[in-house]
C-alpha cells in the first residue's frame, strides 16, 4: 500500500467519488482500483459511507411552522 499509485488514488478519493477529476484521471484511478484489492476496498467503504450519510442525514426538512414564521417575519417588518 505504499506504492505511489496507491497514495495518489487514496489522496484523490473524495474527488474521484464525486467525479470531479478529468476523464483521464478518473480512468487512471479506476484502473488502479481494478488491480489493487486494498485500495478497492477502501474506496468501496468510503462510497458506502457517503451514500449512507446523504440518505440518512439529508432527509430532514425545515418544518412548515418555521417556514411560515420566516415568511411572516420577512413580510411584516421594515428591515
Amino acid at each position: 500500500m505504499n506504492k505511489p499509485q496507491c497514495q495518489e488514488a487514496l489522496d484523490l478519493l473524495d474527488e474521484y467519488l464525486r467525479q470531479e477529476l478529468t476523464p483521464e484521471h478518473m480512468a487512471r484511478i479506476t484502473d488502479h482500483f481494478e488491480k489493487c484489492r486494498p485500495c478497492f476496498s477502501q474506496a468501496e467503504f468510503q462510497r458506502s459511507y457517503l451514500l449512507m450519510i446523504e440518505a440518512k442525514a439529508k432527509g430532514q426538512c425545515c418544518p412548515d411552522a418555521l417556514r411560515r414564521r420566516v415568511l411572516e417575519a420577512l413580510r411584516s417588518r421594515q428591515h
Partner: protein
Amino acid sequence: MSDADARRAAFEAEVLPQLDALYRLGLRLTTEPSRAEDLVQDTVLKAFRSWERFQPGTNIRSWLFTILRNTFINDYRRRQREPIPMDLESPESGLALRAASDEDPEGTFFSQIVDAKVLEAIDRLPEDFREVLVLSDVESLSYAEIADIMKVPVGTVKSRLFRARRQLQSALYDHAVEMGYLKPARARS
C-alpha cells in the same frame, strides 16, 4: 410592484429554497430544534438586511451558511462550553475502523443503521469536526467553499474532515456491533 416588494421577491426566490439546508445545518450546530429554528430565522433576516452584498451568480448556499455560522458563533454557542482539544483522537478509533474494514470491507453495515442513530452520532462529534463533516458530506460543498465559510486553509478542512469521518465511522461501527449488524473483529495473534 414597489422597489421594496421587488427586492423582497428577489430575495425570497433565492433564499426560500435553501431553508431545508439552513435548518439542517442549524440543527447540527445547535443540536436542539427550538434553537435551530431561532437561528434560521435570525439568519434569514440578517441575510435580508445585507442582501445587496450578495453577488448574483455566486453560491447562495455558501453565503447563507456563512451568515448562519457567524450568527451561531456570536449569539448561540454555549458560552460555558469547554474548548475542544483538537487532538482528542484516541488510538482505539483507528483500531475499530481497521476492524470495520476488515470485517465488512465494502461497508455494507452502514446501510443497516437507522437514521436517528446516524444523526445522534454526528451530533456527538466535537463542534469543529461536526461542522466540516456536515458541510462536506451532507451538504456536498467543496473543500474550497468550506475553507471560505470557516475561514481556515483548505489543508485544515481536509485534516478535520479526515478525523471527523474516522470518529463518526468508528462510532457507527461500535453501534453496528452492539446491535448485532456486524460481528466484532477478533484480535489476531
